[in-house]
């Protein structure tokens, strides 16, 4: 799984450079998030703009990151959701769990 991270003052922006987030790569997303937590970084923006498809295990990996960040007084926020991806968050009511922003800038400004 290709993921790029950029450090900003208030948070890390992690960009998922994959078209598809499914049971084949969601565990890797979980462990990439774990790496950031272990480096002491617990405020994270996940940029999903390249993700065209997400399944329940991709959603699950994001929830697991969200809970881990919370237990470290941090937060995981999302940005760049494509239309169909967004509708998966709505269907599973996860749009009420995550703070979701149109752009990286808006997500960063919210910390």
């Amino acid at each position, binding site marked *: 799984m290709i993921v790029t991270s950029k450090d900003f003052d208030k948070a890390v922006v992690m960009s998922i450079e994959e078209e598809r987030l499914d049971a084949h790569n969601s565990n890797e997303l979980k462990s990439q998030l774990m790496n950031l937590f272990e480096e002491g970084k617990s405020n994270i923006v996940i940029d999903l703009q390249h993700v065209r498809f997400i399944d*329940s295990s991709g959603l699950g990996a994001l*929830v697991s990151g969200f809970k881990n960040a919370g237990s470290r007084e941090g937060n995981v926020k999302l940005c760049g959701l494509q239309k*169909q991806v967004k509708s998966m968050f709505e269907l*599973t009511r996860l749009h009420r769990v995550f703070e979701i922003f149109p752009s990286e800038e808006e997500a960063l400004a919210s910390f």
Partner: protein
Amino acid sequence: MKNLLEVDIKVPNQTKYLRLIGQIGEDVAGALQKFNDSDPEELAYHINLVLTEAMANAIKHANKNDPNKDVHISINLTDDQLWIRVYDQGQGFDISSADMQTPDPELDHGRGVFLIRSLMDSVKYRRCKKGNVLEMYKSLRTSCDNHSVE
């Protein structure tokens, strides 16, 4: 009802093939000219998703990630009906125990069967010759009933 299109696939029990199966599902959706009330991209996504969820469950829960097992998938499309069947070689489970309630938003798993049930019109899980089959059905009839295949 004439069977328009039948696709049968056998793949190794490995998650790296989820993408291929989902993609084939999207191609089949693309062969439909007129759609259910949904837009074409939405139907393609939904077919991709239910195939991905059902196959991932077969791989993980039924076939216990054994890479030497297979998953068998069949897609049947008529003018106004879509059938998707995913066969596993596991011990089975009671699908009625996974009820229709929205899954706890704080859980990091347990949304697969819910999504399948939300997006398809009927879902059954039953024993068959070599194991079990998850049988998913969706009507593609439009309100005005002028649905056709491209």
